[in-house]
């Protein structure tokens, strides 16, 4: 999990400087920022633009093009749930609805206590063990509603 210390321009600048000389550095930089803060803060855009000699609009255009980059700080735990075809064939929709009801949020949302963000993904490469989810970067297979409950309970117990 992230250090969760909130946006900090100096730390952002440091991450940008580590990577700015790579060919095609923009995606690696945006990933580094998201790793650091859990999202890409608006305030990062001018910093990145300056480092790569791009316009603000260009950087913003890239950030908004890709599904991965969040614009807001996520919850302490991020649960990505696969809703692609193989997982559909094993009933992922029911499991997803169960999780949404339990947490009281829809896909893309964050719980009020900021403990969970749930997101949709299209395939996690675990399609022989559907339904699949990824919790804080860890993959799980054969995730029934009960297993999902267990994963959420466990995550809550550990912060």
């Amino acid at each position, binding site marked *: 999990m992230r250090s969760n210390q909130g946006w900090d321009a100096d730390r952002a600048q440091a991450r940008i400087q580590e990577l700015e000389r790579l060919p095609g550095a923009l995606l690696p930089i945006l990933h580094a920022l998201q790793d650091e803060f859990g999202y890409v803060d608006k305030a990062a855009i001018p910093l990145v633009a300056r480092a790569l000699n791009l316009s603000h609009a260009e950087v913003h*255009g890239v950030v908004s093009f890709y599904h991965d980059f969040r614009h807001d700080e996520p919850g302490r735990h991020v649960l990505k749930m696969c809703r692609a075809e193989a*997982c559909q*064939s094993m009933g992922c929709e029911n499991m997803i*609805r169960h999780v*949404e009801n339990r947490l009281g949020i829809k896909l893309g949302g964050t719980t009020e206590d900021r403990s969970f963000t749930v997101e949709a993904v299209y395939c996690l490469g675990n399609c022989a063990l559907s339904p699949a989810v990824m919790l804080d970067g*860890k993959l799980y297979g054969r995730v029934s509603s009960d297993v999902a409950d267990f994963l959420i309970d466990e995550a809550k117990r550990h912060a």
Partner: protein
Amino acid sequence: MSLKIFVPGDAAALSVGAEAVAKAMTQQIASRRLDASVVRNGSRGMFWLEPLVEVETPRGRIAYGPVTAEEVPGLFDAGFLEGKPHRLHLGVTEDIPYLKKQERLTFARCGITDPLSLSDYVSHGGYRGLERALTLTPQAIVEEVTNSGLRGRGGAGFPTGIKWKTVLNTPSHQKYIVCNADEGDSGTYADRMIMEGDPFVLIEGMTIAGFAVGATSGYIYLRSEYPHAFRQLQRAIAIAYDKGYLGENVAGSGKRFDLEPRIGAGAYICGEETSLLESLEGKRGQIRFKPPLPALKGLFGQPTVVNNVISLATVPIIMDKGAQYYRDFGMGKSRGTLTIQLAGNIKRGGLVEKAFGLTLREAIYDFGGGTASGRPLRAVQAGGPLGAYFPESLLDTPLDYEAFAERKGMLGHGGIVVFDDTVDLAHQARFAMEFCAVESCGKCTPCRVGSTRGVEVIDKIIANQDRVQNLELLGDLCEVLTDGSLCALGGLIPFPVQSAVRHFPEDFDKPAPPPPAFEASKTQETPSWR
């Protein structure tokens, strides 16, 4: 000699508890003071048996599975280190029919070796392909790959040797090898398995490609949904550099090849090669107009080979055993082996590498054992989200590019997703359009606007509003998408939609139902989810 126990470190195996099993094994070894070690191999690809544990015995490797951590002490008590009987005993791994009936060429080592042991790799035939390539001229390497009949495994099936030849014959001070590891299709995981289970074979394949076309630099564009594969690739690449298999003097040849993995950012369209190149350059992943082909003007405007993981990972065995050996597998214009991935509602889901020519039915029943739910099979989607839905009556279609094209379907990357009789094909058609709308790169109107329109039209059909007219409208929309789209996302999305209408008309003719399951879980519009 120390006994070896194998517990896969593959992400799918880990997803059902392999890490806890490995820990329990290590604990038992310590508390029983045994001379044994745990190797974290790749997966054999029999996922219904994961975590599949193996132990090395004089009779060969003996398999047990699916093993849970709780059962580990009992396995030791039963004498599993000598391969003795136990409830989970599966016999000699290689004799399990699912494996025995396969022809594993690309996956020859996957699940057998320690993926991060270069000495394992070399002692199992690794780097023999490169060794031979180093004795040949670039032209001769390209010719060998051409003669093998290898066609791109990313979906389009373009002959790999011909692509390489174009890059070889395009002079430039800098050329690139780009590995397409975006593996976005639902129902596919072969790329992931090989990157986690035998990463050196991909590194070797890319190095050979580099020498063949005169490229000194390579990138692996890996989807962000595969963090485990990323770590594995990073480690393998570091080892290859350390042991002189990458860098300025590859295997003492005096030739240079550098390799770097890069992570995508959750856009399906970035699996398309020109969009992928834009993304690697740090831009929005929008499709480029072709021509020019990437082979002529690719990454940073330079001649570039873009190949799928499996295409590149197949090159070493072709170079090692020769083009003829490889082409002797397969049929017609589909030579060599296909890596079939059985997925979804299937009893024995997993990787099946077989010469082209197996039928869908054989794959699904002889290997897969039918549906996981035990209910009747109703539909099969091969080739990912842009592939057609086939009914039971088309199951005798051979798994070959042309045979699928003839039936308005697509083999794609070899994923086969099985659905039982609870599936609603109107709902699946709607999902296809929705997927296209979410993943459209936005460059052309039919795809960007038409897909959203398609969702609305299908919603009306489902709600039984002017069904006849709306089905006609859907047909027209699909035609516009087919004819007016710049790339295969918009161009092929009519496949799943129209096949659903054609083969399952009854699902578009039901009384208006309560809102479909999907409605309830429709994504909230948030900035993070475009």
